[in-house]
């Protein structure tokens, strides 16, 4: 399962960004060339949330939103950029040249992470900052 591996990577990125705070939302941007099935990604993310709920719970409430990006190909032959609707073949829809490069559609990013600011967590981070380790600013 491709999507489960991706969700494990997303989890690591999200936990790093959240710095110990509970996460309420995650937005990811995935290009269609990644061949990710959004329903499978959400299903696997639910597995990650359930796993979290059995542990520290930081991701238990983390809803995922997926921003899908269609494939756009730039053609070296005719110079056009074309949006590819269905067929994933690396072929210019205008002139059928194969000298194409994807301009969009290969994205695979965590965009945003929403975290809950609880009083206890804030104090904990403050203690940590006071101890000199800093918060990366």
């Amino acid at each position, binding site marked *: 399962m491709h999507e489960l*591996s991706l969700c494990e990577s997303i989890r690591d990125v999200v936990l*790093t960004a959240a*710095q110990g705070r509970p996460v309420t939302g995650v937005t*990811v941007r995935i290009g269609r060339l990644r*061949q990710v099935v959004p329903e499978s990604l959400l299903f696997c993310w639910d597995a990650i949330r359930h796993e979290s709920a059995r542990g520290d719970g930081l991701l238990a409430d983390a809803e995922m939103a997926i921003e899908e990006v269609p494939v756009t190909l730039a053609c070296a032959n005719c110079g056009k950029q074309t949006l590819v609707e269905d*067929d994933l073949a690396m072929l210019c829809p205008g002139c059928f040249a194969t000298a194409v490069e994807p301009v969009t559609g290969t994205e695979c990013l965590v965009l945003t992470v929403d975290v809950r600011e609880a009083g206890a*967590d*804030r*104090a904990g981070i403050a203690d940590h900052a006071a101890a000199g380790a800093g918060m990366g*600013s």
Partner: protein
Amino acid sequence: MGRFHRHADGTTHAHDDHEHDHEDHDHVDHEHVDRHHDHDPGGHKHGLGPAPRRGGASPEHPEAREREVGDHSAYETGTTRVAVLTSIFAENDRAADGNRAAFDAAGVVVINVMSSPGAGKTTVLAATLAWCRDAGIRAGVIEGDIETSLDAERLAGYGAQVSLLNTGAGFGGECHLDAPMVAHALRRLDLDSLDVVFVENVGNLVCPAEFDVGAHHSVMVYAITEGEEKPLKYPVMFRACELVLLNKMDLVPYLDADPEDFRAHLARVNPAATVLPVTSRDLTSYEPWFAWLSARLPTRG
């Protein structure tokens, strides 16, 4: 990368100690604080800590994104939207760069071997290891796709160093090798005494292409029995390889699949790829593959 710690009192925090040496580094230091629910005007002081930075309109934080923050009024405390913009593969790519540096330091050429299940990858690898042994080429194998323990015994019989990865141990099993797994397997190989390492990836036509393991070359073993149209169905995978070993060519007379149609479909997604037909029924069919390999191995004095 930040490291998470859990203290005895149950609090967690991260040390943001990573190096900013990657384009997709974590933007935690640009954290955008957007508190929606300051119910108590005098609250949220919490004494010792630094005040959170209020959300400013910096280029990384367009107003549109701020408006996406939902209403979390059920909570007594506010919600912060952290702009992350980190590649999901950032951590893997860092580990892959580390692997590549280790391979380069030892002067080893590393070939990532991908396939679908049942394409005959282990058979091709066995023939390749036998050729390496006879040619005096010191080979290692990182084996991530053992179907049976017989496969491992078979490969170990050619004098190659073999490092086995138990890919079934992960949460739900693994569908590919990633760079940290390969880094782990590397510790069981003596790279300085090797010329070439083959990474036998998990048989899968989607996932292995996504995870850079730090190899110098990617090769696919594809059986003509799988049909001629798969390149169009799995373009990412077929774009990720520079050479396709078209296996089981001895079965072509019994199939509808036409190798020329396969070549045409492959050219639509990866016009630069080389196709070399092979069959285990005729060991001379491997010779172009061995020549391709020889041309990419370091010359030893």
